[in-house]
């Protein structure tokens, strides 16, 4: 992966450890600020920034004294605004129950753009590399199942079931909280757990643990138990017209529509309805269709995380393909007396992508040769060897790119201006103008991408438009994924701490289970450090995007010189998307849970 590495072996080790180094580094970077900072002299733990309304940890905040009182700020920018007009802010400070978070400063944005440009056109393309065969995917793996005890645990019949019972209990609790708790979103744990912790955290999980969410999935767990308790389903074959992921793509777009359009993230009841709706789909499919057809074809969470998991740092694979080649019994696929057949019709002998694996560990139980392995691997391992690009997957990749950008855009003040403009210009209601703009935001990036691929295919006609369109779509995944991460880091680190207060009063009924109900928790990270992380994430995503695109080019356009030229429109597109990501991060963001 690291093409300029001194030796292949060190390079591989670096590639496998990089994600974890980055994770650890980010955590230290976030934490060091708080650890190093002296305790605030006043004894104040958390305060509200009078300029933007964000709550800040007093010990790490910027301060300014005015009329004998110390004021706390999220950032230097807020402090400077205050210093210009202290009397005005002191008289009417912003309150803590809704706030607009500052975006990255202009200087950081400009630096980010410069780095992106430099990486794209400066030197990255000039590094000589050898084209890889498909066997390259086997390099740089670290087998976790070789550790003592890991395989034994995975082979235990009830190991996964117990973990799933816990998540299922949590899931039912969230539904109960959403339905029966207070409908004030800031005082109910359901919206926070669902949208901030789970939906935003999913990206982090995928990045580091691949399809691990499917292992925990309460929808499938409950559906499976219902199926077992009711004596089994009908085992119909999934309709061949639906043997693709278009249904999941439609679900994903529909979820984004209700999430951002109808604002279900701030309606606890609606959050519970969405969870119940997914449960109905899961149970219905489990009883009607064979194996786990819903997980394989219909589940939006599985498909979105599945596509992202091609990038993820954890995989289930055959440890030694040569053992598979001589295997005649194929328990991993067909099932045996120790476990079920692969629920999503994957076959270890040939499986080379994470996408459709649910990490259910059945193959660990069934394989008589103990040949199933759980391995750490470099980021993006599946993307560089992408075997058979599919139209539905490619479209989902592009939809992920445009929808994550759209997600960010709706939280900026520009979004309100845009919808208001359309409402007056077209005379339509908010819901119509929202839908129209969302359609445009979905369509425009894909249209732009199509144009760029057209240009590429004009420069290298031998590759063919369709092949290029499908293959390059996967190169967009890292960019989407890391912008998603940058955006969600803000939610997780800024809104996440509120969980500790809500856990004491999950239904908003005035309980205080753990004595933390009325504690005000400050964010886990200071704004400056968060900005640093966000820019870093966008750049890392861009680098991986470049790398995948270079690998794709080499595969499709053998002629190196023509390949370099034909890749240029794609590079321009990727730079465009990354700069747009940085621009979005620069915008002030209206945080979704009020009363943070």
């Amino acid at each position, binding site marked *: 992966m690291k093409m300029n590495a001194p030796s292949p072996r060190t390079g591989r080790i670096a590639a496998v450890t990089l994600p974890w180094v980055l994770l650890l580094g980010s955590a230290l970077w976030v934490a060091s600020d708080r650890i190093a900072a002296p305790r605030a002299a006043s004894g104040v733990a958390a305060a509200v920034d009078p300029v933007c309304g964000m709550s800040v940890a007093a010990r790490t905040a910027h301060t300014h004294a005015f009329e004998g009182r110390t004021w706390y700020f999220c950032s230097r920018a807020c402090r400077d605004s205050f210093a210009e007009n202290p009397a005005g802010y002191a008289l009417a400070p912003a309150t803590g129950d809704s706030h607009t978070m500052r975006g990255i400063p202009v200087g950081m944005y400009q630096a980010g753009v410069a780095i992106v440009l430099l990486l794209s056109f400066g030197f990255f393309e000039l590094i000589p590399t050898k084209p890889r065969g498909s066997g390259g995917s086997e390099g740089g793996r670290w087998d976790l199942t070789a550790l003592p005890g890991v395989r034994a645990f995975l082979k235990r019949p009830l190991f996964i079931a117990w973990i799933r019972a816990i998540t299922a209990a949590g899931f039912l609790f969230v539904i109960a909280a959403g339905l029966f708790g207070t409908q004030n979103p800031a005082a109910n744990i359901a919206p926070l757990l669902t949208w901030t912790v789970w939906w935003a955290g999913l990206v982090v999980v995928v990045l580091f643990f691949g399809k691990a969410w499917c292992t925990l999935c309460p929808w499938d767990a409950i559906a499976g138990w*219902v199926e077992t308790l009711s*004596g089994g389903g*009908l085992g119909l074959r999934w309709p061949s017209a639906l043997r693709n992921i278009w249904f999941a793509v439609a679900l994903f777009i529909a979820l984004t529509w209700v999430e951002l*359009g109808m604002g279900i993230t701030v309606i606890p*009841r609606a959050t*519970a309805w969405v969870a*119940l709706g997914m449960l109905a789909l899961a149970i219905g499919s489990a009883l009607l269709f064979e194996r786990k057809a819903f997980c394989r074809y219909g589940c939006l969470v599985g498909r979105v995380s599945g596509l992202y998991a091609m990038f993820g740092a954890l995989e289930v694979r055959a440890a030694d393909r040569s053992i598979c080649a001589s295997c005649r019994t194929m328990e991993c696929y067909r099932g045996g007396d120790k476990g079920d057949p692969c629920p999503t019709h994957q076959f270890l002998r040939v499986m080379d992508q994470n996408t459709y694996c649910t990490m259910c560990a059945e193959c660990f139980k069934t394989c008589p040769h103990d040949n199933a392995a759980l391995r750490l691997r470099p980021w993006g391992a599946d993307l560089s060897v992408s075997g058979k690009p599919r139209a539905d997957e490619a479209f989902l990749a592009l939809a992920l790119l445009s929808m994550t950008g759209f997600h960010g855009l709706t939280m900026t003040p520009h979004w309100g201006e845009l919808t208001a403009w359309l409402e007056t210009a077209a005379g339509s209601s908010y*819901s119509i103008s929202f839908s129209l703009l969302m359609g445009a935001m979905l369509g425009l990036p894909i249209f732009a991408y199509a144009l760029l691929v057209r240009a590429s295919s004009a420069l290298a006609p031998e590759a063919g438009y369709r092949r290029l369109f499908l293959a390059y779509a996967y190169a967009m995944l890292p960019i989407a994924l890391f912008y998603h991460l940058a955006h969600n880091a803000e939610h997780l680190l800024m809104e996440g701490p509120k969980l500790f207060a809500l856990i004491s009063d999950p239904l908003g009924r005035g309980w205080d289970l753990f004595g933390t109900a*009325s504690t005000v928790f400050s964010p886990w990270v200071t704004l400056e450090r968060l900005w640093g992380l966000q820019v870093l994430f966008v750049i890392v995503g861009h680098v991986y995007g470049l790398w995948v695109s270079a690998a794709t080019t080499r595969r499709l356009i053998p002629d190196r010189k023509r390949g370099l030229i034909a890749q240029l429109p794609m590079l321009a597109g990727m730079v465009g998307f990354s700069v747009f990501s940085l621009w979005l991060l620069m915008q002030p963001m209206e945080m979704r849970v009020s009363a943070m």
Partner: protein
Amino acid sequence: MKTATRLPWWKRIAVYRRAVQLLVFAGLLALPITARYAHYLSARSLDKTIDSWRGTLPGALMGLSDKALRLGIPDGEGGVATRRPRKKLLARARAFYGSAWSARLFGVSMTDLLAGVESAAASRTMRLVLVTGLAIPLIATALLGRVFCGWICPMGILSALARKTRELLVFLELKPFDLKVDPRAKYFVLAAGALVVLATGLPLLHHIYPPALFGREAHAWVAAVFDRAESGRTGFFWVGLSSASLFLLALFLLETAAAPGLWCRSLCPGGALYSLVGRFRLLRVKRKAAGCVDCSICDELCPMGLFPMTDRIGMECDNCGICVDACPTHALSYILKPPEKRRAGKLASAVLSLLFLGASTVEAHHIMGIPHYSYDESYPQAPVLKLVETVGPWEFQLTGYPGNPTPGVRTELHAYAVATATKKAFEGDIELEVFEVLAFGAKKSIYGPDSGRRDKSLHKYFPTYATEGNYELVLSFMDEGIVSTLRFPMVVGEPGSPWTAVGLFAACLASFLVLIRAVRIKRRRALGAEAAA
């Protein structure tokens, strides 16, 4: 069922019994509807309501009541030929009151035996109206036995429904349990219940007595449908779960899954009372030993767990006639058999002891001496909403009257802030703004900002919520130069009750599971048949 010779329908007692039960059930719903009809009629708003609710459920119910009550009464009143005959209609509509628990039909008060005992025990009074109210049921029971249980009580329908569901479970190979509880348990329930009521003076038995619960639910449902219609919401809706419907649902599930006929046979205190009186009954099921072939079909079918085949019927028979219908040789039939003299004396003493139960003169409220026609639903409650939140040093209290506002009706909100440390009330202005929370998260201000009316340190506001839905109450006040804002959620009407979602989900899931299982069983049987062939 293994009835060898199935009788034609008009010869089967079950048909008549089911018809009577369904009539009583319809009557239970008709009684509160008729009361509403009389209410609108006397308020001279009947035509208006019928017209404005055209095409909706409450409109249809009123139209139907109008048609039914006008049967046989010629149009015209006060010299106008087309005018509705109000006085006669009112007299007719007011001829029915009450429920299966206690009713007045055509001026005659009747009360259930258990209701009578409970009322007398709780008030420790025996009034004349109670004695006359008990007379008809007592005489009917003395003549016909527990016919109230077998032919009238709405629990009979629920129990039969549970048996049908059980058959479905058996078909689905789900093997329901078959628990038996000693039938004598109900006498214990009756004795213990009566003692508790007597000791505490609280009428508690009607909370577990199905005929009372059905009547109460019918009243509550009708009241809710029309109350909502009056505020402009005419659609069908689910009243929501009450303790009564929960109890009935639990009984249904228990009888379906675990113990068929459990309640009527083994637990019902009213059934116990009717059994005690029914001992002396005139109408009995009698076996002609000559015709009997000892097939034991009747013993198997008896819902009361009695044994007609060996003449062990006793006092618990409710004359339901299932055994008479089922007997393949027609060896079982009804006969009239007057009680022996010895037993007549016992009957007299039982009635007397019932009449002289209690001696004090505690007054039962409202309708002297006769149990309520229906309970809470007669007296609309106005629940109050109370929201408390702390901001800085202030504890904030927002109280709403009523707590569940009706759309279009002016409501009252009281805000009050007190310092948590000093207990001093906040003296500044508090502003209220009310937002309607629309779909897509948009908010529309519908009231204020307004500093309301001051009543010492109480701040009063009078918003009107135009439509059913979610609202947000935003209170703001300034303290030491800092403006604090508080947001309280307010729900008007029932915009999607959580129980509706849960109920709908559970119901759909259950029927889906049944369907899947049925398909699987059919499929397996077809395979089996193929293999056999």
